[in-house]
């Protein structure tokens, strides 16, 4: 019981943030998980009450609270709509860290996070190994989403349909790059992000191409790794801190105007969580993190704000497709970026068709999809339905994790819809013009 008391003391540190919740219950109207289960412990108000209870030492052990706290997509729909401005995502991340530090990381997660994820080289080694052998366990499917699925019924993959690992990850194709500033007058560093590096290198290739077209100087340092969100979501602040330190050192080697990512989750993590959660004590490091996060931008934002799009002529518009757009939670709810990707789609000569509830979570939620695939799929299927109802050829979204989830849902339903990043559409448009 004494250690429950010490845990209570640690949770009490969150008290000033917890008391902001006035229990109005508005979060129930926007939580994608609550919509499925109607359980109070699944929505922010319930979880905040549980943390409050933990701080008051109301429970015999922390397991039940931890399980419920982890049943969350971290989509931030609640925070974006909270009348009292409760900083829900930050509280949950901190609470997960406190609980993990209290009871220790599971041996499996120890291995994955501390030995693999925290060191970009080891992480690359394992993912490349997995990439080489993926054909043994999975087979490619002939569908517009170009997904693969398990060859035999596999408890590891369920009936998922997932984009295959790239044959060559982006950092193999382009280990490093440093191009001079051109006609745009700006220099931009690219934080590649794991999923783009290992699953969708084509998006990073398109970044190079588009930047070249617009004369944007591009800096891609060698040795990049993960932004830290998977570790943080599992409460592993140590690995997170290590990763932040690593990238701060990596990016301070060159001067640039903006740090850009094409991954909504990486952008949101660097902008919001790096400054608020980092607890390292190195001299001057916090100021450096602040500085870097302030100049971090989503790729759509960068392009819309900084380049002149080529004028569309009627020929372009005829070639254009009907495209619908899904708002990634980490772009719209976390960063307020919603208009820019839409502008980019239109600038690519396509007709933008809005789907119902475009800003509703797709149900991916990182490891949520892993541990709660059934609920994740139920949420994802609503998204699939809304996409299919638009009768569009393509759904675009600014987050590779959403792309994976949406591909899975569309493939499962045999929908004839391609899944692309808005940047890919723009790069295609530039290619087709010349």
């Amino acid at each position, binding site marked *: 019981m004494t250690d429950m008391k010490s845990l209570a003391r640690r949770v009490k540190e969150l008290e000033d943030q917890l*008391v902001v919740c006035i*229990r109005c219950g508005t979060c129930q109207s926007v939580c994608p998980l609550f919509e499925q289960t109607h359980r109070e412990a699944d929505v922010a108000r319930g979880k905040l009450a*549980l943390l409050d209870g933990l701080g008051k030492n109301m*429970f015999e052990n922390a397991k039940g609270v931890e399980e419920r706290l982890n049943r969350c997509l971290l989509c931030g729909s609640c925070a974006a709509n909270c009348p009292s*401005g409760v900083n829900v995502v930050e509280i949950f991340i901190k609470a997960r860290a406190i609980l993990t530090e209290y009871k220790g990381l599971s041996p499996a997660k120890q291995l994955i996070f501390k030995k693999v994820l925290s060191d970009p080289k080891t992480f690359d080694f*394992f*993912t490349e190994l997995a990439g080489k052998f993926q054909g043994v366990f999975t087979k490619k499917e002939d569908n517009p989403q170009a997904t693969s699925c398990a060859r035999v019924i596999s408890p590891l*993959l369920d009936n998922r349909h*997932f984009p295959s*690992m790239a044959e060559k990850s982006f950092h193999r194709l382009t280990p490093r790059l440093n191009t001079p500033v051109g006609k745009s007058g700006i220099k931009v560093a690219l934080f590649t992000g794991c999923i783009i590096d290992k699953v969708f290198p084509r998006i990073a290739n398109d970044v190079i191409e588009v930047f070249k077209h617009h004369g944007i100087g591009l800096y891609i340092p060698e040795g990049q790794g993960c932004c830290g969100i998977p570790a943080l979501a599992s409460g592993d602040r140590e690995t997170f801190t290590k990763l932040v330190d690593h990238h701060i050192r990596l990016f301070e080697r060159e001067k640039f105007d903006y740090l850009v990512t094409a991954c909504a989750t990486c952008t949101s993590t660097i902008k919001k969580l790096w400054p608020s959660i980092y607890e390292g004590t190195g001299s001057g490091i916090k100021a450096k993190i602040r500085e870097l996060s302030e100049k971090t931008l989503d790729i759509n934002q960068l392009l819309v704000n900084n380049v002149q799009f080529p004028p569309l002529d009627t020929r372009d518009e005829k070639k254009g497709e009907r495209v619908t757009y899904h708002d990634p939670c980490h772009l719209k709810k976390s960063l307020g970026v919603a208009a820019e990707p839409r502008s980019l789609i239109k600038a690519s000569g396509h007709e933008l068709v809005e789907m119902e509830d475009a800003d509703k979570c797709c149900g991916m939620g990182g490891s949520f999809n892993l541990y709660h695939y059934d609920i994740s799929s139920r949420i994802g299927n609503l998204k699939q339905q809304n996409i299919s109802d638009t009768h569009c050829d393509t759904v675009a979204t600014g987050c590779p994790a959403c792309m994976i989830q949406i591909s899975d849902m569309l493939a499962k339903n045999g929908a004839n819809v391609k899944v692309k990043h808005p940047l890919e559409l723009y790069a295609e448009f530039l290619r087709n013009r010349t």
Partner: protein
Amino acid sequence: MIIMLMRVLKATKTLVLPILKTHSHERIPMKGLIDQLIKIVGKDNLLTQREDMVTYSYDAAVLDPVVPHAVVMPENSEQLGQIVKVCSTHRVAMTVRGSGTNLSGGTIPSNTSGVVVLTGKLNKILEINEADMYAVVQPGVVTATLAAAVEKKGLFYPPDPGSQAVSTLGGNVAENAGGLRGLKYGVTKDYVMGLSFFDSMGEHVKSGSRTVKCATGYNLTGLMVGSEGTLGVIDEIILKLIPLPKARKSMVAVYKTIKQASETVAAIIADRIVPATLELLDNFTIRAVESYSKAGLPVDAGALLLIEVDGHPGQVEEDGRRVEEICRETGAQSVKVATDDAERDRIWAARRSALSALAKLKPTLVLEDATVPRSKIPAMVKSLQEISKKYDISIGTFGHAGDGNLHPTILTDKRNKAEWHRVEQAIEEIFDRALELGGTLSGEHGTGLAKAPFLEKETGRSAILFSRRLRKAMDPYNILNPGKITGVI
């Protein structure tokens, strides 16, 4: 592939760490009850673990939580009826809960051996009848969901409580919820044509009808509206719908003093105009909204009135012009009429953000709703200013000036014991002043636990005794949300 890697992680975890059996908090066993409830709804719809119980121990009222014994989630009327029967057999207290947005503690469990019944899965709109203009709904349908569904058919369900995006119709009926449109369109009770419910023995009782007129039997529907789950458990509601107004016009009037604003309210009513909404924001609230939303509100204004007239286009035009004149005649510094939907939305966004803006100022927010006859609004506003000064606490006042239902909102921090004590005294004095002015303790939030101890002040002893006898007759075992409204029987 990453997914595969993560799956390996999950599998390893399961192998490495044998799953520890969860020890739920053990309390007085009521095994028979729990087993019977599981038989009715299945084990996925019955919760008993302590962690889950804690999440049903509160609602939106600032009151102490009570952790229930079990929580049950029926999926249809039959299951609901069986649950009531089982609870009746075991003499177990039941508290029905929609979204738990109650502001008077009506959905806080009655005791630690009580059962909470969730209506979340009873959320079907059973019928929208356009020819006869009514809707039949289950109690768990969210208010805004019905409003949107009928609007698509050109119909209108006017009651719009502040929590409509999340509140349920069952909760609205049980609390007789109001909203911004009370002045012209009335409140929930004015739209309930009929309902069916399970009595305390689990017998299914039907009342009211699908007709506009219905003169048979006792008006049990009327009795059930606002009964806060103390007389029966509602399973179906027939709601009246009306045609959607064809036009509307919104405006915002700025005043130097709150007195002038309240005089405008009286003058509009005296001119025989009934706006759909007539909302007031005091200076404290204006400043809070402005610092939160940067909407460009005049922070030095004593008060704002937000007014909307609706109806036939010709009448809206005429009423709108006359209201504008009255505002100016009674001292408005400026009157701005919304010229398009975007401007209209901005006006109402300011009103809707009032509570949020105030909530951000201090950790604890007590939303009161003592209501007075609308002609007494100036006197009530004056009283609130005096009370705020006397007890040295922050009170922001906004609300439905048109129907006398102001929301004095007290901002405090419950952890500050001395201040909290002053807040409790202030609330009691607000009640006293409202009653002196011929008003009521609650316009729309209900009695619940929060106002039960004060109800006698408003109604007198015999009304309490009569209510208790009525309740005893309908609920002999005292299992329907005991402790609410009439206090301990």
